[in-house]
């Protein structure tokens, strides 16, 4: 998966080599190697306290790494103070200068580098973020979304090699956040600068980034494109943190070429060997994962209509909630106590109500296998914590 990183031209990559940060006895970031290719939109995703912001601050120079080296292109910038790095940051809650108007806020970086004629560039930049009419206002006269755009403009005007975004949308309400996600993506495509974006919102990371690094406990759990991470999680943390996964504790029964057959709670399930991130051997334990939206639901009376070759599990509907575009079911099954199924609301079967006996079935190719030695609930509670 790390190979996605080497597709760039290589000149302006951000390269972290063995970087770590320790506060007293607390390891905020454990030795970490990471390459962010030039021109990419890269997201560091994780729950609070996972070390993502510390990593970002070490790239910015606001935090000195305990060990390791930060390279921008071929240049070692580890020892450089922030004002000497060709890197700019969009801070969480923006940190706009309250005593300067929007124009001067945006011009700040240019002026510090001794550039005298800033008018043209500032105007251009304010147009890029659609704030041309606000130049003479003070930050406190702007709405949250507008301030956020000023913060982006203030950083981008310096044409940094890398733009760092520290939870830039955290202070905005949901609707505005969606809008700004698209806006930031548009800006990134337009200017072509490397963006490194720190967020705890998995949807935000997946919407915006080309490459996502999922961090947990100071380490990168998995790195890849959003679709890749979602479809092929390699750890229970990633499986649970990015969307929802049903994880079934199973025992490997037999292996037929590239197909693994497992048994769980009396059911026989099949999955492709290529999608098992843990070594499989007959008799070994495995966690079989399946995303809720890949599962089809049939009433027990219709069990005969299910095509052959699909994985099947029986259960009873414990709960169902209608959320418009789909209906979310929680199924009580001997295989897995709280099985989640998202069914598209195309044809609603009125028999599928709580208490009904059902058969769950899915294409075996959609299952993935994880190492059973991990905590099956990793990544679940942390998400709840963040929401509350």
């Amino acid at each position, binding site marked *: 998966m790390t190979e996605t990183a080497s597709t760039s031209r290589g000149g302006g990559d951000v390269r972290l080599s063995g970087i770590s940060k320790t506060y007293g006895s607390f390891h905020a970031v454990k030795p970490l190697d990471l390459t962010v290719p030039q021109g990419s939109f890269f997201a560091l995703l994780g729950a609070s306290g996972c070390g993502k912001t510390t990593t970002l601050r070490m790239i910015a120079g606001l935090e000195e790494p305990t060990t390791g080296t930060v390279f921008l292109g071929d240049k070692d910038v580890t020892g450089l103070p922030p004002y000497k790095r060709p890197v700019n940051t969009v801070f969480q809650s923006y*940190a706009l*200068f309250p*005593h300067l108007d929007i124009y001067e806020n945006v011009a700040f970086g240019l002026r510090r580098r001794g550039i005298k004629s800033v008018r043209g560039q500032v105007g251009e930049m304010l147009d890029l973020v659609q704030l041309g009419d606000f130049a003479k206002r003070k930050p406190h006269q702007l709405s949250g979304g507008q301030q956020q755009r000023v913060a982006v403009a*203030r950083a981008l005007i310096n044409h940094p090699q890398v733009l760092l975004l520290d939870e830039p949308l955290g202070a905005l309400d949901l609707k505005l956040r969606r809008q700004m996600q698209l806006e930031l993506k548009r800006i990134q495509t337009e200017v072509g600068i490397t963006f490194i974006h720190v967020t705890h919102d998995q949807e935000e990371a997946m919407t915006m980034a080309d490459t996502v690094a999922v961090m947990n406990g100071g380490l990168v759990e998995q790195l890849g494109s959003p679709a890749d991470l979602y479809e092929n999680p390699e750890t229970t943390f990633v499986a649970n943190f990015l969307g929802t996964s049903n994880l079934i504790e199973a025992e490997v029964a037999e292996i037929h070429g590239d197909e693994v057959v497992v048994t769980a709670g009396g059911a026989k399930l099949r999955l492709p060997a290529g999608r098992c991130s843990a070594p499989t051997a007959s008799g070994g334990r495995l966690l079989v994962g399946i995303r809720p939206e890949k599962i089809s639901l049939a009433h027990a009376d219709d069990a005969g209509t299910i095509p052959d070759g699909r994985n099947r599990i029986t259960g009873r509907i414990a709960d169902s909630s209608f959320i418009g575009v789909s209906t979310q079911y929680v199924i009580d099954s001997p295989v897995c106590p709280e099985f989640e199924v998202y069914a598209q609301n195309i044809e609603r079967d009125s028999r599928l109500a709580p208490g009904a006996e059902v058969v769950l079935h899915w294409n075996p190719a959609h299952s993935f296998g994880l190492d059973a030695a991990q905590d099956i609930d990793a990544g679940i509670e942390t998400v709840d914590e963040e929401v509350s």
Partner: protein
Amino acid sequence: MTITEAPPAAPATPPEPPVRKASTRKRLVPYWLLLPGILWLLVFFALPMVYQASTSVQTGSLEKGFQVTWHFATYWDALQEYYPQFVRSLLYAGTATILCLLLGYPLAYLIAFKAGRWRNLLLVLVIAPFFTSFLIRTLAWKTILADGGTVVGILDSLHVLDVTSWLGWTEGNRVLATPMAVVCGLTYNFLPFMILPLYTSLERIDGRLHEAAGDLYARPLTTFRKVTFPLSMPGVVSGTLLTFIPASGDYVNAELLGSTDTKMVGSVIQTQFLRVLDYPTAAALSFILMAIVLLMVTFYIRRAGTEDLV
């Protein structure tokens, strides 16, 4: 103001009359809250001012009694006779204010940004001198600056006194009874009034602004010049005012640490009131000082333009 602004009354009661009553009462609340302060100001500020103003235009003597004769010439006479003391007062107070700013700013900065868990202790230490009386502390400076004392001895051996004497701040190898002693006393006594407002406005500055400035290519010194200092202007303005205004009317430091050549207008007023018993002149001097300070402060606040810093 209107019925709509009042919170809805209990739904069961007929809406009109009780709501209106509540809103009238509500409207009066601010005035009731203001009342004690207004009364206090009336009795202890407005009345004495009127009394003083009338005194300043009276003529007469203590034996025959004073009468209001609208004798405005007292102002002119007082200004003519005592203008050196006025100039000196403003000069000493101004110098002390600048010294307070120079001494207080680094200290306030340290407490606000670098002190960590020592912050509260340092703040208590800043206020600690107030636990002793103003007079006692000023008298202590008399001992500190005494002729032949350690401080004077050290300053003399370092040839500092040669320089200050050449500048006219001290005389020979004496510090006491010189302008320098008075300015030192003023600086010392009013320093906390500078530090506290400075600290308050520095402490309010978001630390991320420093990081943001550094991130935008500002070196630490530029960050201070372009971000920290402008944002601390409200503190600078209120600190300098809280120092300059009382210092310009102060007479204790000039009396205890100075000589007849370092008299400030405060001591003149005090002498006129309590020793010479020339009440009209003393009252006129007070009003002149007040007018001068008011003018200077207005001009200063206009120039500093702190109103858009909030």
